[in-house]
């Protein structure tokens, strides 16, 4: 059994069961069932750490569509395991937190179902080895994120935030899919491992750089990199547990994961280096710069997340320089940057998760997240304050917290890269540490704002909705655990470094690992008065200075008014698309069925008739056809007569009956040509559709005499004759042409292959069951469509639950 593949699907099974548990088990909070899944997954994955840290990888395959090389291959190496542990670990803590956060009046069944869907999809993203499977899971995370952001769908801002995140991340996802298809066609495989193995043969291909840019677009949109970061602040409309889980700890890391995963493929290119490093470092600056101006605590954390993601992204970019240089003792130094990136990825999940939960607690307790109304909560909420301080100081990069370690490593990387001379770094390289340092100063400022504005200063109870109080102990458990981890990682960082990050490095730099390079690092808290320590001290000094004087320089932000922001541009673009497409659509959507028929049949004539002439298929071999018996003539003539009479029918009932003659005539022809299955089906369908017609006609007015203009009538006549001619020509032409080998021989021994004598059904249910399955689903969609069109419309008018 493929246990790891199953691990991906367990959350999906849970998602299917949770609605029933929610409905039928009333006295236990449904979250307690949900929490079992990530906990079990975490324990299981943790049990794999020894295997992975010894340098092994686990590969398990479950066939899906092997004929196209698309299989559910789970590939677990250090990188996947690190992410998977984060997903399940933080997932368990977030669910525990949400049990106390969400009141039982909320739609908890949907909440935990979406959360489980997300968890499964996210595990799929980090474990999939097949690019197309990765894509499917990737989009599933976007969809579950959409559902979770719009959890309070009664609010307009929630719906808009959800829509925005979906539009941006899915557009990125589709461009990533195109990139994957390019990579797949270049390397002739969908497996990422195989692509990495023969990267040497594809990197000269003309599609290599376009494929890289398209994949990066997917990564940048998902990880909220500039200028696609605008969806993340709006996504904060989601319930806080969701923000803590999806929009800081896991989903937004998917783009970073993708960059890490594809570093061995694209990493040796200058374009990759500059795109990833440049976008990352600018996002780092832009996020931290904007975080300072926020007044909503969650928006502040959102911009801070954007900034931190940019920082991790830029470290992956800088680390890729090592691949460009190839293995040597000098180039190994750059891999340190990637190591730091992975370490910070873990650290960020711990402290940012804790901070989001703190904001949730504050919001829950006093009813607001606005820092202009908050203050002085330190004495009333001492535990919350402690955790908030731990998280913020780690975020600012201060000891003794884990953020300090990764921030120092980040500074070392920027200094190393600024001294390099390849990629044109000689002239521009110095900018990297400078921007990084400035951004870190702003990071320090907003971290200070977060703590000082919320917990220090005067307590203004009159501005709060409820008086401040510590929350239920259950709500504090998760942030406290994360806070303790923040401290623990500072004192024993090498436990993470050695067992998770070092094996992950082997996956990102396979050529280095093959040479036997030691990619692991020993993380030290103290390494003398080095330049990076000086930088940290500078951050603190200037940070404090800027925080104290921020009244005086806040005017800087008026240089970036809302009117000229990317957000406004995005809104403008969306409006324009909507307006213009409405304009075009209104031109041809006339709401007359007969116009649509004209479109369909004109296309039929042009498309089929055109192909017919283009391929030269008009080779009729009439003499080879079987002779037509008198009986067959009789039936066909009756059908023709009925067909013509329909045109002159005075009432709808007559038209239906005449139409049925056509249907039953075809059924008789099926019998004559020995196709009992088709005849049977045709007859039953005739019976059912006649009833359907009758029911529908009950609501229609009397059949009126058509009063169309002469010109329209002539066009219609022309089209109908054209359709008839094309149809007849195709029917006759089919006999004379064989473009492909016939496939009927494949089905001949259906009894041996499928155990059934009825070849038609063997084809439907076995040989081509995939078609049948999809048809069944289409039928279901059509049925639900009819139902909603007719029934839901009337309901909506009376029951308006959405606000404006």
């Amino acid at each position, binding site marked *: 059994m*493929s246990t790891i593949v199953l691990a991906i699907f367990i959350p999906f099974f849970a998602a299917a069961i949770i609605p029933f548990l929610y409905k039928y088990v009333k006295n236990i909070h449904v979250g307690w069932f949900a929490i079992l899944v990530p906990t079990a997954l975490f324990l299981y994955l943790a049990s794999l750490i020894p295997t992975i840290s010894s340098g092994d990888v686990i590969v398990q395959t*479950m*066939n*899906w*569509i*092997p004929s196209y090389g698309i299989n*559910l291959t789970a590939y677990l190496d250090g990188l996947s395991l690190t992410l998977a542990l984060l997903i399940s670990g933080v997932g368990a803590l977030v669910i525990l937190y949400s049990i106390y956060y969400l009141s039982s009046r909320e739609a908890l069944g949907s909440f935990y179902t979406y959360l489980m869907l997300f968890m499964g999809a996210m595990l799929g993203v980090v474990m999939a080895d097949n690019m197309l499977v990765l894509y499917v899971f990737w989009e599933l995370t976007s969809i579950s994120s959409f559902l979770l952001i719009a959890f309070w769908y009664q609010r307009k801002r929630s719906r808009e935030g959800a829509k925005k995140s979906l539009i941006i991340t899915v557009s990125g996802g589709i461009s990533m899919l195109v990139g994957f298809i390019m990579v797949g066609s270049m390397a002739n495989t969908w497996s990422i491992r195989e692509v990495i193995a023969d990267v040497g043969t594809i990197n000269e291909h003309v599609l290599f750089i376009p494929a890289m840019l398209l994949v990066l677009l997917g990564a940048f949109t998902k990880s909220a990199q500039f200028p696609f970061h605008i969806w993340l602040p709006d996504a904060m409309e989601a319930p806080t547990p969701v923000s803590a889980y999806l929009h800081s700890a896991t989903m937004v890391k998917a783009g970073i994961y993708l960059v890490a995963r594809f570093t061995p493929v694209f990493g040796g290119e200058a374009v990759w280096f500059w795109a990833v490093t440049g976008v990352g470092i600018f996002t780092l600056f832009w996020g931290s710069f904007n975080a300072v101006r926020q007044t909503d605590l969650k928006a502040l954390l959102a911009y801070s997340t954007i900034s931190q993601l940019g920082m991790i992204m830029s470290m992956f970019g800088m680390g890729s320089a090592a691949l460009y240089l190839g293995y040597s003792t000098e180039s190994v130094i750059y891999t340190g940057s990637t190591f730091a990136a992975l370490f910070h990825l873990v650290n960020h999940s711990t402290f940012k998760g804790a901070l989001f939960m703190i904001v949730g607690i504050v919001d829950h307790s006093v009813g607001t997240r606005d820092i202009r109304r908050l203050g002085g909560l330190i004495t009333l909420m001492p535990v919350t304050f402690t955790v908030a301080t731990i998280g913020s100081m780690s975020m600012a990069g201060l000891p003794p917290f884990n953020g300090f370690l990764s921030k120092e490593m980040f500074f070392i990387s920027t200094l190393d890269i600024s001294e390099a001379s390849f990629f044109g770094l000689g002239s521009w390289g110095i900018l990297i540490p400078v921007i990084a340092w400035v951004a870190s100063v702003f990071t320090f400022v907003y971290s200070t704002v977060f703590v000082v504005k919320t917990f220090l200063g005067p307590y203004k109870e009159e501005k709060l909705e409820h008086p401040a109080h510590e929350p239920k102990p259950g709500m504090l458990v998760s942030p406290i655990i994360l806070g303790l981890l923040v401290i623990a990682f500072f004192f024993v960082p090498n436990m993470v470094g050695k067992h998770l990050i070092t094996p992950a490095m082997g996956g990102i730099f396979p050529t280095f690992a093959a040479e036997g390079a030691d990619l692991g690092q020993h993380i030290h808290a103290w390494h003398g008065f080095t330049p990076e320590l000086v930088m940290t001290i500078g951050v603190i000094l200037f940070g404090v200075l800027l925080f104290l004087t921020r009244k005086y320089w806040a005017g800087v932000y008026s240089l970036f008014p809302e009117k000229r922001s990317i957000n406004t541009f995005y809104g403008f673009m969306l409006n324009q698309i909507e307006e213009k497409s409405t304009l075009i659509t209104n031109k041809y959507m006339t709401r007359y069925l007969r116009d649509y028929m004209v479109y369909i049949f004109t296309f039929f004539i042009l498309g089929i008739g055109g192909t017919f002439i283009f391929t030269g298929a008009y080779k009729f071999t009439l003499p080879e056809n079987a002779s037509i018996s008198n009986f067959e003539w009789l039936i066909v003539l009756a059908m023709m007569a009925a067909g013509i009479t329909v045109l002159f029918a005075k009432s709808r009932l007559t038209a239906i009956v005449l139409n049925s003659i056509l249907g039953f005539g075809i059924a008789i022809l099926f019998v004559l040509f020995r196709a*009992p*299955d088709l005849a*049977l*089906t045709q007859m*039953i*369908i005739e*019976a*059912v559709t006649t*009833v*359907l017609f009758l*029911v*529908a006609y*009950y*609501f229609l007015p009397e059949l009126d005499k058509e009063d169309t203009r002469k010109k329209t009538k002539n066009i219609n006549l022309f089209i109908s004759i054209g359709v008839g001619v094309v149809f007849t020509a195709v029917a006759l032409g089919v006999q004379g042409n064989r473009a492909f080998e016939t496939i009927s021989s494949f089905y001949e021994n259906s009894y041996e292959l*499928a*155990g*059934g*004598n*009825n070849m*038609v*059904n063997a084809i*439907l*249910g*076995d040989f081509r*069951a*995939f078609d*049948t*399955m999809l048809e*069944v*689903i289409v*039928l*279901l969609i*059509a*049925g*639900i469509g*009819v*139902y909603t069109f*007719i*029934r839901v419309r*009337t309901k909506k008018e009376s029951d308006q639950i959405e606000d404006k």
Partner: protein
Amino acid sequence: MKINNVILRTVTKLVFFIILTLAVYLFFAGHNSPGGGFSGGLVLASALVLLFIVFDIETIQKGLPIDFKLVAAFGALLSVGTGFGALVFGENFLTQAFDYFNIPFFGKTELTTVTIFEGGVALVVVGVVVTILLSISEDE
């Protein structure tokens, strides 16, 4: 105008079960002779449609309190589920299995997963046909 349809009602009560039997027969016959999930489902649906036409909708819904949307959804789940079932046994998606078993009374019988798949198809057909008919006819 009130139509006296005593004869139709009486005949329907009897014929309904004959049609049902035919539907079940067609469903199982499909493996080796004409029939199958689609036609079996359609016949079953037409039997229900007959009931809805002859008696009024409220009466039938009282006697048969089934949400046909759920029937259709369950059918689709069943069909797709057999596809995933194959995956669990390490086979390709939608691989159907069959074998011959000796069952008392029936003798040597072929059991196959296609039956489950076709059962799903039949349920979707029944569910969708009845749902469409009911939604159109109940529209005000």
